[in-house]
């Protein structure tokens, strides 16, 4: 379902990665067939992690060209966030996706942004990825809106009272 990669088409996201401080997966999502197997995906993650490890991407998002793709990345504590797009993509459009991604993760983990907290709330991380990009198409870039959509944990109107509880215990 990859959307056309033509320049005059839409900005397309190739993958979103949330890796830990050792380069292991916390949550990842790929939207193209460019990395067909799990091994290819892992290889991509390993090399992009190694390539960016020594850079300082804490205050501002950083950027690198990698295998004909543009990869934007940002580190928060021990979490490494990556957004990959084609090499003709508007870098700043990709940056807005990364910005939304990192803001949403920060909000969802309530400021305790580290790999343990992310794993503890992995369901929210998956939902977060799902709300940012849909099959390569940018769905939302506003961090607080993304987090808001993920964190609706109430009970729907039609539910019987017995099933209702207000805040989901973590």
């Amino acid at each position: 379902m990859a959307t056309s990669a033509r320049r005059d088409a839409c900005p397309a996201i190739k993958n979103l990665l949330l890796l830990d401080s050792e380069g292991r997966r916390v949550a990842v999502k790929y939207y193209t067939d460019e990395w067909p197997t799990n091994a290819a995906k892992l290889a991509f993650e390993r090399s992009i992690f190694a390539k960016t490890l020594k850079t300082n991407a804490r205050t501002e998002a950083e950027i690198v060209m990698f295998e004909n793709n543009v990869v934007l990345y940002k580190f928060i504590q021990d979490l490494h966030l990556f957004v990959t797009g084609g090499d003709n993509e508007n870098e700043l459009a990709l940056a807005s996706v990364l910005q939304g991604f990192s803001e949403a993760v920060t909000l969802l983990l309530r400021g305790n942004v580290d790999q343990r907290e992310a794993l503890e709330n992995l369901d929210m991380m998956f939902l977060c990825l799902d709300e940012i990009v849909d099959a390569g198409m940018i769905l939302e870039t506003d961090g607080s809106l993304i987090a808001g959509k993920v964190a609706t944990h109430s009970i729907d109107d039609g539910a019987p009272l017995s099933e209702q509880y207000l805040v989901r215990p973590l």
Partner: protein
Amino acid sequence: MAQYVKKDDDRDEEAEYSPFSGIEKGAVLQEARVFNDPQLDSRRCSQVITKLLYLLNQGDSFTKTEATEVFFSVTKLFQARDIGLRRMVYLIIKELSPSADEVIIVTSSLMKDMNSKTDVYRANAIRVLCRITDGTLLTQIERYLKQAIVDKNPVVASAALVSGIHLLQTNPEIVKRWSNEIQEAVQSRSALVQFHALALLQQIRQNDRLAVSKLVTSLTKGTVRSPLAQCLLIRYTSQVIRESNNSQTGDRPFYDYLEGCLRHKAEMVIFEAARAITELSGVTSRELTPAITVLQLFLSSSKPVLRFAAVRTLNKVAMTHPMAVTTCNIDMESLISDQNRSIATLAITTLLKTGNESGVDRLMKQITNFMSDIADEFKIVVVDAIRSLCLKFPLKFRTLMGFLSNILREEGGFEYKKAIVDSIVTIIRDIPDAKESGLLHLCEFIEDCEFTYLSTQILHFLGIEGPKTSDPSKFIRYIYNRVPLENPTVRASAVSTLAKFGATVDSLKPRIFILLRRCLYDNDDEVRDRATLYLNTIGGDGSVVETDKEVKEFLFGSFDLPLANLETSLKNYEPSEEPFSIRSVSREVKSQPFAEKKAAAKKPSGLGAPPAGPTSTVDSCEKLLLSIPEFSTFGHLFKSSAPVELTEAETEYAVNVVKHIFDKHIVFQYNCTNTIPEQLLEDVTIVVDASEAEEFEELVTKPLKSLPYDTPGQTFVAFEKPEGVSAVGKFSNVLRFIVKEVDPSTGEAEEEGVEDEYQLEEFEVVSADYMLKVGVSNFRNAWENLGEGFERVDEYGLGPRDSLKEAVSAVINLLGMQPCEGTEVVAANSRSHTCLLSGVYIGNVKVLVRLSFGVDSAKEVAMKLAVRSEDESVSDAIHELVAN
């Protein structure tokens, strides 16, 4: 998963705690049984789904049965009313990508959710349903989707629109019916809805130029607020500009809109507009200036992304408009020390492109400091840029060659070293003055080179270029030094190189013989064999005589047999009285000629390139053609044209033709592809009507036995024509064949076939077909060498033309010659232009052309044509070409 299990062993327990330690697929699948409990525990179910998703995300996969089982139990969870759990259900359904019969089970639940009062349900149910549906369902839910597009909740509207974008690939006719709703959504107050609606609307209309143009016209007046949507609009606008194709008449449409976007408040939009302006075709410097100005501001931004985007775009602009970028040079220079090495490298290479001759030395000093702390991949980019710089400013070769030889001595991997060596080789080839020093740098490098490949390539290159220098003897020491010090491969190369010196430079012969004799005692077979061969052929009896041309051809000529064929023949040869004869080896190239041609057409550069250059494509065609018995007597193939399409794209049969020109013959190679799976074509021939090509006489037709679906095949038609004359004419073609039905399920063809014909387009043989594009590196030298003997000069009026550029390219195409020294590029708005062309005319006659164009205020173009060639009649023929 495994990584989490493993890390428990070797790491601090507490720091590495993970809620998923030791998680196992089997156990989780067991746990998934809670989905079937009559009394659902939402929280527990959520956790189990998270675990399942975790496994999938780590790369675990479920078998078909496992996936089906999970899917069925998950569908039970639609009973639960917990929004969080429902979200997880949606996620896992998407991840499991159920099959069509499974989809039916969740369809009703999802359709219920699509009409729910809860917006989160509506939005997600739409996304899930559109993702998993196979289209049959779509007509049922179409009504809801249309409503959703104009829903007041932006999340729901976006979900429907994005799903529409995906569905457009599979069910375009349905999505196209939503245009009214989508158009309404473009006016939405929500930024993202606007973006999604615009994207979908353009994709629906993308094949309708007029509609896209209307869309752009109405929207550029200013209702789009979302930055992302604005970026899209800029892209569509530049597409419209590209297609509107207006020439120099007045202002470019929509340029004002693009320029206005440069003042937008979102950087994303400013950048998109700036980039769009730089990519306009035939952009003028007045148009470029505002874009360059905003990009220049970005260069000093605190955000790396912005600096990167700007410098990358400027780097591209520098290729076509170096002067426009020079204003940014000071900012660029400060980027050389940028923390982000990608930015630094882009800045350096941009500077190398825009720099002027006087600044080269200073720039090189800065780069020297920079090179030590970047990775090899960046260094390669810099080396390539330096090579281009050196070819641009040949007078600076000393500085640049010095730089290259310095970095050649430093640490580096194979690819990097190869890039440096390739650059030095290119410079040596193109700048005669640089030859001696360049070769000596290479000699020093092989003294201490760890890469066998590079050593052997350099030795080979020395063998070709070394003997042509003023003092070949000084290279001998470097070459012979390899023999006692290196591995057998390099030693064997060194022996060959020595022999080449010996064969070409008579005065060196006695010394070479002594050295070669020493190699006879080498402990490697190949080295000894080569030494023996060379000693015996070049004149091992010690006498110094000029080496025979034949011997040279035998030793150092090119080998024109396919190696694979030789290998098979040698394997099949059984020892007998009769010696193995190389003549028995088939010359037929077995591999797909297409693939090979492609490979050969890819121009090699640097060391790998054969010094003769442009004949490689012809070589492979020639082999192919001569392997066909009917054509084997035609002699040397002069030129093969690029394929000319004879059918429209996407028709039943795709046919193109390649024109092969021989001295007295011409062969048309028709490449046919059958695009109908249900058909098999047999006895495929082309019936050619040459009534409009009087000088040609049809000789032989070689039909294609069978043409199955999607497997390209070739059929040939050969014509005779007067020798050495550039006969021209028009040929019309009909494809004739026997068609047989094929059962698509079994792939078997029916016995009986029907004869059928298919009309193809006609094509022409033109004079340019008789001209080989062969460039010369130094036009002035070549021009003077040819002398005035057969020079013909005349003036022509070309009549009114759209532009000078158009006139120049028309003449280049007419002559089919290679433009030299970049003179095919006409500066915008110039009133006159000189263009230098070179080529080889049929009969192997070298031709050089100097064209001077002038244009007056009425756009009347006049041209002075000066031709020099090795043959008077050819010079005249060129003039005749133009005169007609």
